[in-house]
């Protein structure tokens, strides 16, 4: 009798675990499927990204309109990317100002091959709606500016890839690196501007090189 009890418990236990892993598998399948559909929606005309491309992370984000996009939809253009939060009062406005200076410094035909991407590190407050409002306030047109909202795991992963460090220090503020990253069309990091004081001259030069390459 007691043996039966134990057996039942074991079976119950294994069922419990298998249902857990079943659930995870479903989620994984779903993720894979979603990624695939995101792929098929994009006509990139490019093959598998190179080994050093950040687009291998294959993570999903929402843009300012609330549309879900895969990170690799940024492929095909030179990207000038920064991670910030919109309620930041000190460094982030300067980072944005520098990105605009870079934009102003690019010849028209280079600008046509370039996109500016802002990734929020504060997903709780920087909702797609908030990002849209921020873009309007700062004249960030949809043609050249992508603003991304993502979950904490995806933000952490992208930050890790770029060597960007950040930490929440209060209800409202973060401490973070002041990093502007240039990705070539394949998604390889080709340059990072790490200090606020640097003039954008070098960054502009790198963008122009990447656009012609």
């Amino acid at each position, binding site marked *: 009798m*007691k*043996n039966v*009890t*134990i057996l039942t*418990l*074991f079976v*119950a*236990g294994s069922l*419990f*675990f298998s249902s*857990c*892993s079943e659930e*995870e598998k479903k989620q994984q399948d779903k993720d894979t499927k979603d990624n695939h559909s995101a792929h098929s929606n994009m006509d990139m005309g490019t093959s598998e990204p190179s*080994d*050093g*491309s*950040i687009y*291998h992370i294959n993570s999903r984000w929402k843009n300012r309109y609330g549309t879900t996009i895969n990170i690799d939809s940024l492929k095909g253009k030179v990207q000038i990317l920064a991670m910030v*939060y919109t309620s*930041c*009062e*000190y*460094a*982030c406005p300067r980072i944005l100002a520098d990105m605009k200076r870079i934009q102003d410094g690019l010849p028209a035909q280079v600008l046509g091959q370039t996109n500016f991407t802002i990734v929020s590190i504060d997903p709780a407050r920087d909702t797609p709606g908030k990002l849209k409002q921020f873009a309007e306030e700062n004249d960030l047109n949809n043609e050249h500016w992508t603003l991304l909202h993502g979950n904490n795991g995806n933000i*952490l*992963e992208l*930050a*890790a*890839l770029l*060597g*960007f*460090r*950040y*930490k929440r*220090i*209060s209800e409202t*503020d*973060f*401490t*973070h*690196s*002041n990093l502007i990253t240039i990705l070539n069309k394949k998604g390889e990091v080709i340059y990072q501007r790490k*200090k*606020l*004081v640097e003039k954008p001259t070098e960054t502009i030069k790198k963008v122009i090189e990447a656009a012609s390459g």
Partner: protein
Amino acid sequence: MKTSCRLLFIVSLVSLWGVASAQPKGMAHIERGTYMPFYSSSGDSVTVEPFFMDKYPVTNADFLAFVKENPEWRKSNVKSIFAEEGYLKHWQGDLNLGPKAEKIRSSPVTNVSWFAARAYAKWKGKRLPTLDEWEYVASANQQKPLASRDKEFVQKILDWYSKPNPDTMPNVGQKKPNYHGVYDMHGLIWEWVQNFNTVFISGASRSDQGELKQFYCAAGSSAATDADKENYAAFLRYSLRGSLEADFSVGNLGFRLAKDIE
């Protein structure tokens, strides 16, 4: 006969308990607890919610099973963006631990990047512990959950930090477990945590003082400048984390996993 019946009864009770709490095999249940991070100058303590933590670091044999099923994480296939050149360099081949295979099967896997550790965790349906979770569990000695002010305990850790790495890593679980029933938090390897990149170090070096302000968006505390000098061992761990990049593969840096309690 009576005894064996009683024993069976106890066994079934234990199984019942195991089912009820669904404690994953090989993991310790970590109770909710509060600790004082070493960088805290304001006296703010951090509360860690209950979670499961692996009793042992992930071993070479564990990781071999992972790369067998996930070819993209084999040495010869791994994308350079996810792991630098030294990835699994102590293995002889993709699925070959080399001449010391038997000796290192149960020793902790090292030379793995943060991305690889994270992929392994996902494969297991688990995750990496957060920095606070790891530090909280690591602040326990054998007798009590908070021992990071215990001189003897801290000295032991520092003694280990000052020793060179052995040629072959010892097996996991050779020493006594800590208060939580977790082994090898100190004395074997350094470990990746999920949010290692929340530690800042660039602003901390003396020649960098001018940049210190540049490095922060808002005025805040820096890990290193507000260092609690008493806990030099924790300071060393934070310094290491501050110097890491997610693709680094380091000879004495491994990991263990955590899991949420559902």
